[in-house]
C-alpha cells in the first residue's frame, strides 16, 4: 500500500488512515445486470475455446479472459482509495450552571438559595473538575435560555441569579451548535429545573429529540427542592394597555399559592394610596391556582400607575411576587360635549350636525325651544319639551364633561348665577369652555361681571349695540396661522389660501377686549381697528375660546352654494374641539418617550418639543428636565432646544419602577411644565413558575443515559465518570481513482494481448 501511495505521490507517514470505496452510483441496475452477464460471458469464453485441444492452454485462456472480464467489471464500479490525515481530539465535558432568577429562591428549612447549592458543590468538588480537565476539555457555561461560556476561575465570582427566562430547549440547542465538531462526552447540568417553557406533566418532544441528538449523557443536578415551599404569588396579569375614563376597566389575575394552608387573603388594587377594589380569595390547601377578575372605574386621564398586592406571610420563599405594579393609559373614549343653544338657528343646527357626526364626540345638546313669553297653545303634556336639568348638569355631572359650549345662549332664567361659578371652577380645573356669539351671547347674554367673564379670553365692554348685523371677511395675522385651531391645511400657503377663500360672515359681537395672554386668532377689520372675532386663551388648567359670531355655518352651507364643500367647516370645528380639550398636538410643550415601557437595562429616550405661544417652534430655548426616579430621587438636567424647538435626553434607568419626567420652560416670570411617567420593568416570569421540576431533570437524565442527583451540602461528584475514546479529527483527505488512470487500462490491454499471443501460438487467429 505504501508503494501505491508513493506511486501517487503521497507520504505514507502523513496519511495514516485509508479507506477503499466505490464511486459507481447505479448499483441498483448494475448488479442485476451482472447476474445475467457473468454466466453468459463465462459460457461464451468457454465455448469460443472449443477448437483448442490442449486442456492446459484452454484453461489458461479461459482464466485469462475471465480475469480480463472481472477487471473490466471492477473498473466499471469506479474504485477509489481515500487516504486520510487525522488528529486525535480531546473529549469535551460541558458543565451548565443555571443562572436564572428562580435560582435565588430559597429552600427550606435552612433558607438556602438554590444557587448556593451549586456554588457549594462546585467549590467542594474543585479537585474533581481539576482532575477532569486533565483528561477532558471542560467547558463551563451559565445557562438560562442561552449559554454563556465562563472560565472556571471566574465561575464563583460571576455566578448570579439574574437571567429572566429558563428555556432548556433553547439553551441545549445553542450548546449543540457550540459542540459541533467537538467530541462531547457528557453534560453536567446544575439547575432547579424550573423551565418556563415545559409543562408540568410531560417533557416536550422537541426537547427529547434535542437530548437524543446530543449523543452524550446529561447528568442533572437538582438545586433546591420543593419541600415546605411556601409562596403566595401574583401570577399572570391580563389587563389592557389602555382604558377609558369613566368606563370600567377589567383585570384578570392568576394567584398561585403553595403550602399556604386554608385561609382568606385579600387581593388589593391601589392607585397610589387609594384603594380601588379589594377581592377576598379563599385559599384551600389542595388548590394551587386561583383566578380573580377585578373591575374598577378610572376617574382621571393620563398614564396611571396601579399596584396589585397580596399580603406577605412569614416564611414565603419569594417576597417580590406578592406585589405587581402596572400602568394603564386612561384616555377619553369620546370627548363629552355639553352644547347649550339659546334658540334653534341655522348656526346651531350645522354645528350640532358636525358634533353629532364626529365619532370622537359624545354630544349632549339642549336647545331652548320656547321662552317664557312664547304661547305654545298646548298643554305641557302634548309638548316634547323637558325641564332643563340645571342642577344635574352644572352640579352633579359637570365634571364628566370635557367641553361646555354656550351657543348664543343667555343663561338667565335657565341657569342660576351660582352655577356659573361651577363652570369657572370646571375650567380652572382643566375643563374647556366655548362661547359662540349671537344676539343672546356675551354682553347680551348678561355675562358681564359674572364668573363666565373670568373664564372667557375676552373682557366684556359695555357697548351699544353690542351685536352688529354686518357682513365681513375674517382676517388673521400670518404668524398666527400655525395655531392648531387655524390649521385647515398643513401647508402654510394652502392654509392661508383656504382662509382667504372662505365665505364672508354675518353678525359680530362687538365690545370684546382680549385678555392679556389670550390670542386673537382672527378678527374683522373695521376702519383701522380690528374687532376680535376668534379669541383663544387659557384659564387655570383649562382652555376657553370666544367666537364672536353666529354665522360660521356660512363656511359650510353657503360655501356649498358657491361650489365648495363643508370640509373646512368640519375641520375648523374639530380643530377647536381638539385645542380646547388639550389634544396632545395642541400642547406648547410636547413630551414623549420612545417606548411605553422599558425593560430593566434598556436605555430610555425622552423627547420634547417646545413651541411659542403662537405655535411656532421655540429654538434655543433653555429648558429643565426633571427626572424623578422610582425611588423618589429627583435630578435636574439643563437642556436646550434645537432650531426646530426640539430636544432629547437619553439615560439608562438604574432600577425598575416608575419614573417621572417633567420639562420645565421658563419664559420671563411664566413657568410652564409638562410631565409624563414611564415604567421600567423587571421580568417576573421566573417567579411565575418557581417550583423545582425534579420530574423534568429525572427525565433528561433517563433519556440521555445520565444520572440524576439532588444537590446538598456534601454532594461528591467523584463517582461521575465519562467515556474518553480516541477521537480523530479528519483534517486532510486525498482520493485516488483506481479506474480512471493509464495503469488500469494498460493492465486490461496487457491481458488481452497475452490472450491474443497465446491463441496465435496455439494456431488460432
Amino acid at each position, binding site marked *: 500500500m505504501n508503494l501505491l501511495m508513493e506511486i501517487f505521490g503521497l507520504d505514507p507517514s502523513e496519511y495514516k488512515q485509508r479507506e477503499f470505496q466505490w464511486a459507481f452510483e447505479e448499483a441498483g441496475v448494475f448488479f442485476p445486470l451482472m447476474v445475467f452477464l457473468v454466466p453468459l460471458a463465462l459460457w461464451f469464453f468457454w465455448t469460443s475455446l472449443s477448437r483448442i485441444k490442449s486442456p492446459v492452454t484452454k484453461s489458461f485462456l479461459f482464466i485469462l479472459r475471465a480475469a480480463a472480464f472481472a477487471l473490466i467489471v471492477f473498473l466499471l464500479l469506479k474504485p477509489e482509495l481515500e487516504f486520510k490525515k487525522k488528529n486525535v481530539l480531546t473529549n469535551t465535558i460541558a458543565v451548565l450552571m443555571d443562572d436564572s432568577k428562580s435560582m435565588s429562591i430559597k429552600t427550606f428549612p435552612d433558607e438556602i438559595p438554590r444557587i448556593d447549592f451549586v456554588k457549594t458543590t462546585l467549590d467542594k468538588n474543585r479537585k474533581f473538575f481539576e482532575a477532569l480537565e486533565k483528561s477532558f476539555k471542560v467547558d463551563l457555561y451559565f445557562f438560562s435560555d442561552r449559554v454563556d461560556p465562563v472560565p472556571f476561575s471566574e465561575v464563583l465570582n460571576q455566578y448570579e441569579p439574574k437571567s429572566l427566562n429558563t428555556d432548556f430547549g433553547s439553551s441545549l440547542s445553542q450548546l449543540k451548535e457550540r459542540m459541533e465538531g467537538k467530541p462531547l462526552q457528557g453534560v453536567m447540568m446544575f439547575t432547579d429545573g424550573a423551565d418556563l417553557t415545559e409543562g408540568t406533566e410531560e417533557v416536550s418532544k422537541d426537547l427529547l429529540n434535542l437530548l437524543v441528538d446530543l449523543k452524550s449523557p446529561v447528568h442533572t443536578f437538582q438545586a433546591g427542592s420543593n419541600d415546605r415551599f411556601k409562596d403566595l404569588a401574583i401570577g399572570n396579569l391580563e389587563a389592557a394597555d389602555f382604558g377609558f375614563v369613566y368606563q370600567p376597566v377589567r383585570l384578570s389575575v392568576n394567584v398561585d399559592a403553595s403550602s399556604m394552608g386554608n385561609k382568606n387573603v385579600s387581593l388589593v388594587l391601589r392607585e397610589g394610596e387609594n384603594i380601588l377594589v379589594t377581592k377576598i380569595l379563599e385559599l384551600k390547601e389542595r388548590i394551587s391556582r386561583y383566578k380573580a377578575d377585578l373591575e374598577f372605574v378610572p376617574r382621571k386621564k393620563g398614564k396611571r400607575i396601579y399596584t396589585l398586592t397580596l399580603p406577605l406571610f412569614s416564611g414565603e420563599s419569594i417576597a417580590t411576587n406578592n406585589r405587581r405594579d402596572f400602568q394603564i393609559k386612561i384616555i377619553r373614549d369620546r370627548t363629552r360635549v355639553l352644547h347649550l343653544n339659546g334658540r334653534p338657528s341655522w348656526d346651531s343646527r350645522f354645528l350640532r350636525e358636525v358634533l353629532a357626526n364626529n365619532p370622537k364626540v359624545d354630544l349632549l345638546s339642549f336647545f331652548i325651544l320656547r321662552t317664557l313669553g312664547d304661547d305654545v297653545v*298646548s298643554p305641557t303634556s*302634548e*309638548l316634547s319639551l323637558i325641564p332643563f336639568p340645571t342642577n344635574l348638569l352644572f352640579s352633579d355631572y359637570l365634571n364628566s364633561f370635557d367641553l361646555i359650549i354656550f351657543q348664543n345662549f343667555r343663561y338667565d332664567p335657565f341657569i342660576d348665577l351660582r352655577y356659573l361659578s361651577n363652570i369657572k371652577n370646571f375650567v380652572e380645573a382643566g375643563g374647556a369652555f366655548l362661547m359662540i356669539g349671537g344676539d343672546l351671547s356675551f354682553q347680551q347674554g348678561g355675562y358681564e361681571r359674572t364668573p363666565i367673564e373670568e373664564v372667557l379670553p375676552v373682557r366684556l365692554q359695555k357697548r351699544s349695540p353690542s351685536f352688529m348685523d354686518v*357682513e365681513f371677511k375674517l382676517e388673521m395675522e400670518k404668524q398666527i396661522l400655525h395655531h392648531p385651531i387655524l390649521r385647515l391645511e398643513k401647508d402654510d400657503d394652502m392654509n392661508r389660501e383656504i382662509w382667504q377663500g372662505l365665505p364672508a360672515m354675518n*353678525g359680530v359681537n362687538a365690545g370684546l377686549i382680549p385678555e392679556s395672554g389670550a390670542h386673537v386668532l382672527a378678527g374683522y377689520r373695521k376702519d383701522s381697528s380690528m374687532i376680535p372675532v376668534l379669541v383663544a386663551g387659557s384659564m387655570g388648567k383649562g382652555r376657553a375660546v370666544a367666537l364672536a359670531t353666529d354665522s360660521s355655518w356660512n363656511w*359650510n352651507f353657503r360655501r356649498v352654494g358657491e361650489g365648495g364643500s363643508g370640509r373646512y367647516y368640519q375641520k375648523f370645528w374639530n380643530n377647536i374641539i381638539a385645542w380646547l380639550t388639550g389634544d396632545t398636538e395642541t400642547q406648547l410643550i410636547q413630551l414623549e418617550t420612545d417606548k411605553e415601557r422599558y425593560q430593566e437595562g434598556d436605555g430610555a429616550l425622552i423627547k420634547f418639543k417646545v413651541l411659542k405661544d403662537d405655535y411656532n417652534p421655540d429654538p434655543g430655548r433653555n429648558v429643565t428636565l426633571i427626572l424623578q426616579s422610582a425611588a423618589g430621587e429627583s435630578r435636574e438636567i439643563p437642556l436646550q432646544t434645537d432650531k426646530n424647538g426640539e430636544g432629547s435626553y437619553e439615560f439608562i434607568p438604574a432600577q425598575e419602577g416608575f419614573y417621572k419626567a417633567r420639562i420645565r420652560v421658563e419664559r420671563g416670570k411664566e413657568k410652564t411644565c409638562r410631565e409624563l411617567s414611564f415604567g421600567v420593568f423587571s421580568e417576573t416570569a421566573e417567579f411565575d413558575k418557581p417550583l423545582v421540576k425534579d420530574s423534568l431533570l429525572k427525565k433528561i437524565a433517563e433519556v440521555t443515559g445520565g444520572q440524576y442527583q439532588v444537590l446538598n451540602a456534601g454532594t461528591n461528584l467523584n463517582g461521575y465518570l465519562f467515556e474518553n475514546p480516541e477521537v480523530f479529527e479528519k483534517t486532510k483527505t486525498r482520493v485516488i481513482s483506481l479506474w480512471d488512470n493509464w495503469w488500469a487500462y494498460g493492465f486490461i490491454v496487457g491481458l488481452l494481448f497475452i490472450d491474443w499471443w497465446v491463441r496465435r501460438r496455439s494456431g488460432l487467429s
Partner: protein
Amino acid sequence: MKTEAFLFKLKPMRTIFAGLILVIITAVGWVSLPLAWANYYKLSIPQIKYRGGNFNPRPDVLSSFLGQVAKRTSIEVNREPIQMQVTEPALYQYPFIYMGGDDSFEPFSSNELRVLRNYLSYGGFLLIDDNSGKKDSAFDRSAREMISRLFPQVPLQKIPRDHSIFRSFYLINQVAGRVNNSPFLEGIHIKGRVVLVYCANDLAGTWARNNLGHWDYDIIGGGEKQRQLSIRLGVNIVMYSLTLDYKKDMVHLPIILERLRKYHSQ
C-alpha cells in the same frame, strides 16, 4: 278678535315708522358698515317659484305661518315674503324652502334638479305641500315626478310615527291638514336625515290667515282642532329642520315616552 283688529289699525302706522327707522339705519349702515345680509340669523322660508301651474295659491301663507312659529317657539323669524327660483344664488342663504301648488307644473330642468339635489344633500330642507285639496291631483303627479327625478335612487317613503318630526316640539300622532287626503307624511332620507317632506293634505290651507286675523280656509273634516294639529305639524317640521334628531337624544327619551304613553291613552 277686538285686539287683533286694533293691532291691524296700528299696523300701517307701525309699518311706516319701522320703515323710516330702517331707512335711517340702512343709510347709516351704508356709510359705516359693509352691506349686511339682513336678518341672516332669523328663520326665513322662501317660496319656490316654478314654471307652469300656480306656485302661490296661498299668498302670504308663509308669513302667517312664521308668525305662528314665532308665537309658539323661541325661533326668531323673518316674515318678509321671499319668492325665488331654485337656481338663484341666494338659495343657499335659506336652508329651509317651501314649495306649494294646486296644479300641474312644468318639469324642472336638469340644471334645476342638480341645484336642488345639491342643496338638499348638503343641509337644505324642502317642504312640498299639495294645496289642491284633491287626492291624486295634477300637482301631486307633477310633484311626485319631480321628486323621482330629483332622487332616482331614493324613493319617497312614509315617515314613521316615531320619527323626530313628530316629536321635535309637539307630540303629534296624526298628520292633519286642510283635508285628510293622506294619513301620513312622505319624505326622502339622505344620510339619516329627512331632507324633503311631502304632504298631500294642504298644510298651507290651515295656516293661511288674512290681515284681519281670520283664517282664509275652512277645514274639511275635523274643524279647529284639525287646524291646530296642522299648525303643530308645521312647527314640528320647522323645528326638525333646525334641530335634526335632537329629540332622539337619550336625555329626552324617558320624559317623551312617558308623555306619549299618557297622550295615547287619552
